[in-house]
């Protein structure tokens, strides 16, 4: 993938994540912070499909943005064909693992498998 395409994705995920994370944080504030973290309220959030969908989207956007940022920092620290390939594929793997792990939580909770 061209670097310009990767960076456009980096910028796009950043802008999209800003809006969605703002909603996620506001949800914690509208109910009262401590109350919003109680088990029943959190479960209700996960079971509400639009909110669960938003969480899934945040997970994907921030994983892509965060691990691409880490990839950029690591690429600048050291160079070499093998190292750069390892960093790129390692970041991609970490991204996929985190998305899979987080999606597992969201899907299982949404389906009532707690």
């Amino acid at each position, binding site marked *: 993938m061209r670097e310009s395409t990767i960076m456009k994705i980096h*910028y796009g995920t*950043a*802008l999209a994540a*800003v809006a969605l*994370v703002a909603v996620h944080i506001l949800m914690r*504030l509208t109910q*009262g*912070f*401590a109350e919003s*973290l109680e*088990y029943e309220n*959190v*479960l209700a959030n*996960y079971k509400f499909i639009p909110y669960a969908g938003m969480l899934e989207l945040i*997970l994907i956007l*921030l*994983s892509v943005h*965060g*691990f691409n*940022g*880490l990839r950029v*920092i690591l690429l*600048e*620290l050291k160079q070499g064909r093998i190292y750069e390939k390892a960093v790129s594929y390692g970041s991609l793997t970490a991204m996929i693992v*985190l998305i899979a*792990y*987080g999606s*597992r*939580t969201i899907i*299982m*909770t949404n389906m009532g*498998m*707690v």
Partner: protein
Amino acid sequence: MTQDEHKEGIKGMANPRRYGIERVAYWLMRLTGLGLLAYFIGHIYETSNILRGQVGWDEFLELTQTTEGHAILAIVIAMCVFHTVNGIRVMLGHGGIGVGKPARPDYPYDPASQNYRHKIGIYSAIVLAGIAMLYGLAVMFGE
């Protein structure tokens, strides 16, 4: 990095001094980015405790709803706000917005791209991060 290349290395990249507030912003952007990534990974792990039911979730809350937990979250709030606001400033800069127009340089050769617009953006990011942190602390410790 070998002696032959005489590269400054990480200490040069990570040194925020010598070159003005823009270099400080670059350094803070990296620091907050890494901090937020670490928090994000931790957050995905800790919220997976919901799968352990009421008992598991309450156990996790006992760990995080503490003074230390709130302090860490306040720092995360500050990092998040700075990274977001400065990130928007940097994105605008990357698009050529606010970097000035090419013109024939004249002594003392002040760079047009290091202008008050971007400096205000950086200071705003820092101030907003501070305000957000204080608001977060008020919300968390106020209850």
